[in-house]
Every structure is written in structure tokens, then in C-alpha cells.
């Protein structure tokens, strides 16, 4: 009887500790937000954006990055993009749209177990090159594709 009570108290104490961990987890997004790379997102050309994000703008073109995007996007407000990186040890995938007011669109950082694959939808102001930068093993690789836009997605 008593041992059961003991274990009950123990497990409830553990649950309490778990609760603390969860609330600590809830606080982290704010801490992470401070790390949002403002300089990189505010940059107005591709090279500056890559430089601000990675500390270097030297990239190697790689055929191991598959970039799936429409040749012609009728609506620039919704352009579906899929990136698959076959480079081993892909750490992050960044999307840049060269003629947008601020080219850097998104950086996806792969955690443990994540594959080099990401799919999303972006806004494009005009016909422009889509640049993907993949960071793997401390090196930067890139791939490019032009997307023609009929109606821009940045104005009202």
C-alpha cells in the first residue's frame, strides 16, 4: 500500500516537472524570435541576403537540388514550390526570389531526421529567378529556375 502511495507521489512530482518543461518550451519561441535573421530578410538583393544569412555569398551550383516550380505562374500571389535536396547532410534550405523587394523568402532548418525536402507557396512580384540555397556540411550549394508571372503578387 505504502509503496504504491510512494510511487504515486513520485509520478505526480515527475508530471509536475514535465509541466515546467512544457511551459519552458512555450517560452522558447520568444527567445528564438530574437534570432530571426532580420538583416538577411531586409536585404534588397540576392547576394546581400545570402551574405547576411550565411556570412558568405559564395555558392556552388549543384545538380543534386531539384527545384519544382511552374514555368508560368498565372497568379504571383500563390506560386507552389517544391525543393528536394539530395545532398547528404543538408542542414538548411533557403528560398530567394531575385526580383522581389526583399528576395529572401524563407529558410528551412532541418532538424534531426528531417529529409532535404520542403514544399510551400510563395508570392512573386514579377517574372524572376527563383534561387535555392542549400547549406550542407558547412558549404553552400545553389540552384536556379526562372518563373514567369502573369499577375504580380505584391501589389493590392
Amino acid at each position, binding site marked *: 500500500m505504502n509503496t504504491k502511495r510512494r510511487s504515486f507521489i513520485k509520478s505526480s512530482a515527475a508530471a509536475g516537472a514535465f509541466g515546467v518543461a512544457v511551459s519552458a518550451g512555450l517560452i522558447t519561441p*520568444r527567445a528564438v524570435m530574437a534570432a530571426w535573421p532580420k538583416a538577411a530578410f531586409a536585404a534588397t538583393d540576392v547576394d546581400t541576403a545570402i551574405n547576411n544569412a550565411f556570412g558568405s555569398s559564395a555558392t556552388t551550383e549543384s545538380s543534386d537540388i531539384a527545384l519544382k516550380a511552374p514555368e508560368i505562374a498565372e497568379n504571383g500571389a500563390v506560386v507552389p514550390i517544391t525543393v528536394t535536396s539530395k545532398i547528404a547532410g543538408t542542414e538548411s534550405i533557403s528560398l530567394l526570389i531575385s526580383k522581389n523587394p526583399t528576395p529572401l523568402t524563407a529558410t528551412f532548418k532541418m532538424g534531426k*531526421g*528531417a529529409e532535404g525536402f520542403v514544399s510551400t507557396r510563395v508570392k512573386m512580384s514579377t517574372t524572376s529567378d527563383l534561387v535555392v540555397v542549400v547549406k550542407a556540411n558547412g558549404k553552400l550549394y545553389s540552384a536556379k529556375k526562372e518563373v514567369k508571372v502573369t499577375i504580380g503578387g505584391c501589389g493590392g
Partner: protein
Amino acid sequence: MAKSIKVRAKVKGETTVVKALISHAMETGQRKNKKTGKMIPAHFIQEVTCSHNGNDVLNADWGTAISKNPYLSFKFNGAKKGDTLKMSWVDNKGESDSVEAKIK
């Protein structure tokens, strides 16, 4: 905020495919309100985090060029049926939301 995230995660062999839809205005801050002529202030998601069993599997920094009501899909290894996947976002106004989903 009401639940703004819809997540579906499915195990296929080794990999788990996650698909998510978030409802968010994603204002760029470069659009004008046609009636008043004033700029609509920027309001967009900056951070998206997705974790499985306490491990961050994806951490995304977003800019203003992600479309309205963003769609996101990615894959990762090492999950089982019935595991819990947690996804959360924070925008530039400090608003946030998170959701948990069972992996199917």
C-alpha cells in the same frame, strides 16, 4: 487565437510526410488600403517550429513573401504511428499558435 493550424502527418515506410495549412493574413507591409490610401502594416509569420517527441524536426524562418494562408510540407524519418507531432508559429506582432497532431 482560434486554432489556425491544420496538420496531417502520415507514416509511409521509413518516412513521415507532414502537410500543414496555417490560416494567416501574411501582410507584406507593401500593400495599400485602396479606400484610405494608407499602407497596411506588415503582419506575417516569422518562425515555424515542428517537433516530434521533443526533437525539433523543422525550424523555419519566414519572410513576407510566403503566400497568404501558408502551406508547408516536409518529410522526416524516425516516427511511428500514434506519435505526437507539435507545430507552432510566431508572427512579427508576437502572436502565436500551436497544435498537436497524432501521426497516422
